[in-house]
């Protein structure tokens, strides 16, 4: 009873105290922690199943369809199998870091969801620094992945981890700038307030460029195709987790798909209006939006070839970074001009600006630098 109270007291500085919100009771923290862990595990299982089935449809296959109806228990069977498998340690591995890495990679994924609202006020902690918390915590899993690549004593793992660091460090910047645009529009860092601010129109309508930047940058940060360089299966065997087996490997897999859940949830919350929506219950709206974003990600993976590492970096620094700056400046000017609420006629203007900038940018921007003299 004491422990939850200490946590509450510590976080009370951040949480807005309103009399009818149960966020300060200890049972709220307990219930929501359980809900979030169950949510992420169930969502990961559903996401993996969806990914396999949808990619199978795209590739003219059937996909897993034997275990349970439509193969939905395939992942549970796979998880059981992985639990029972032998965990192999490479001879030259740095054992402590090797064992720690999957935990470091997976834990932040659950923590991030603490600030995501499932409906008005239904969230673990309504931090007033919500977005900052998300960005800061989700970066930690990168360290886990680098630990894995470094400690495995495998060159493929190390190459994968190096690519990962390069990609995440570069894409953090346009992503954070795109998030800053949302914060300007909503006037708050709290995710709950951001969702409430989208009551009139979702931010994707007001700020298409920001959405595009967040989606592309997000794909790169969680290493989704076409930016899945760190575990490029046709090049680096399995990238950073080449040497992992059994439950440690499963933790990475959980972390990877957990990141996907988090990224879909974030995009749904920040740009698609979160739990807002008519008729259906709010949590259902959030789920529907999460699955829409997830579907687009799977679609991209099933369709596009992979970019090269220098093209990946060039895209971040030469294309997305300037666009993100322009997006931030335009949003700032608009918010300054209409401090109360943006008039609806800025929507066509913003869309026009987005289309012009993206077309112009892709004409001017040159990818990569090709062959190196050696």
């Amino acid at each position: 009873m004491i422990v939850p109270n200490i946590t509450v007291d510590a976080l009370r500085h951040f949480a807005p105290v309103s009399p009818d919100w149960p966020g300060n009771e200890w049972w709220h923290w307990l219930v929501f922690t359980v809900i979030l862990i169950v949510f992420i595990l169930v969502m990961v299982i559903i996401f993996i199943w969806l990914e396999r089935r949808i990619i199978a449809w795209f590739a003219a296959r059937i996909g897993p369809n034997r275990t349970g109806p439509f193969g939905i228990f395939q992942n549970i069977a796979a998880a059981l199998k992985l639990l029972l498998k032998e965990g192999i340690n490479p001879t030259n591995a740095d054992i402590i870091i090797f064992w720690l890495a999957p935990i470091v990679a997976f834990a932040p994924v659950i923590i991030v969801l603490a600030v995501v609202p499932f409906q008005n006020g239904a969230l673990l902690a309504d931090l007033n620094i919500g977005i900052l918390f998300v960005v800061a915590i989700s970066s930690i899993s990168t360290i886990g992945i680098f630990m894995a690549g470094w400690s495995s004593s495998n060159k493929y793992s190390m190459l994968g981890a190096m690519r990962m660091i390069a990609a995440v460090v570069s894409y953090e910047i346009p992503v954070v700038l795109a998030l800053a645009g949302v914060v300007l529009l909503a006037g708050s860092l709290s995710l709950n307030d951001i969702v409430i601010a989208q009551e009139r129109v979702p931010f994707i309508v007001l700020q298409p460029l920001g959405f595009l930047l967040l989606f592309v940058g997000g794909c790169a940060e969680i290493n989704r195709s076409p930016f899945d360089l760190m575990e490029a299966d046709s090049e680096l065997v399995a990238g950073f987790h080449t040497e992992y087996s059994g439950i440690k490997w499963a933790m990475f897999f959980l972390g990877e798909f957990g990141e996907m859940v988090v990224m879909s949830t974030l995009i749904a919350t920040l740009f698609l209006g979160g739990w807002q929506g008519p008729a259906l219950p709010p949590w259902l709206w959030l789920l529907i939006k999460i699955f829409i974003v997830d579907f687009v990600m799977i679609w991209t993976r099933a369709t596009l070839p992979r970019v090269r590492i220098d093209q990946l970096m060039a895209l971040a620094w030469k294309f997305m970074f300037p666009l993100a700056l322009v997006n931030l400046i335009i949003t700032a000017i608009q918010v300054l001009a209409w401090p109360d609420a943006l008039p609806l006629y800025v929507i066509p203007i913003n869309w026009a600006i987005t289309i012009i900038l993206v077309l112009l940018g892709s004409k001017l921007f040159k990818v990569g630098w090709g062959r190196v003299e050696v």
Partner: protein
Amino acid sequence: MRLRTEPFVLNIGPVHPSTHGVFRMRATLDGEVVVDLEPVFGYLHRGIEKLAEERTYGGVIPLTDRLDYVASVTNNLGYVLAVEKLAGISVPERAEYIRVITSEMQRIAAHLVSVGSFLNDAGAYFTPFLYMYRERENIVDLFDMVCGQRLLYSYMRIGGVSQDLPDEFLPALRKFIPRMRSRIDEYDWLLKENEILLARAKGVGVLPRETAINIGASGPVLRGSGVKWDLRKADPYSVYDRFEFDIPTGEIGDCYDRYRVRIEEMRQSLRIIEQAVKQIPPGEVRSEVPHLLRPPAGEAYAHVEGATGEVGFHVVSDGSIAPYRCHIRAPSLMNLTALKDMIVGWKVQDLILIFGSFAITMGEVDR
């Protein structure tokens, strides 16, 4: 500022998802850039040339299947042409047409595999690969109809082919041609102008025209470099001189050109099949050849345009029932000799892509 870096050796293969079999590349990397490359061959060496010396002339045909196992009909054809030249055997006209039809079907099947695995190497997660395999399945079904086999056909015989086409084959083939044509167009359209594919493959792994000629490259690799050289036109064997078709060529010899040449060749192969189906005469499919053939002492070389290039067989006879020597010119191996020059300076990802654009088969490289 220049960081001090230290090159390290990365062994790619022999067991690796993208080495198309058991090929090994000892790549020295400086960060992501390949600074040196040493190809290591021989993991799939089965001594086919030596084994051929222990077989009768007819018994060598199944061995030739195992060279380029995704294009076995053209290998069969190269070998039987060499033996027929050596023993002076004539082939019935219907058999010649069947040979052309099956060779072109085989070329389409092999190019489908090449294009699919090239796009897979480029990172398009299995979708193009499986689309190509779905179409290849139709061709394999047709082969199943003709000779009861689905991969290693051994369909050619000295002096003809093993059996006549079944009655249901030609109608099925006529139905197959337009369907395949529209499918090629569709798949081509899916990725032809994809920005990422252009960025990855255009200008990458250039094989200059002169180098291509000097190393003795052939097939799509040579034509991708802009050389209009196709044995079906340059030295027509069988009845290839009776058909109209174009030789597609690339411009600068990069990965993208080789990919385009393969796609275009599939269309040309369909044209040839279409004409051959119209012209095919009735009659015998196999001339009388003794079971234990004893060609007069001497030697003969015959070559065909296989899926990967010029498949050549040099057969030497000493008058006995087995070849004295059977040398195989493997196009995959010849094409690979330029690998190092093309890859050095590019990144690891390009290495996989450039290697994939050769579409080699290890069975042929190591023999």
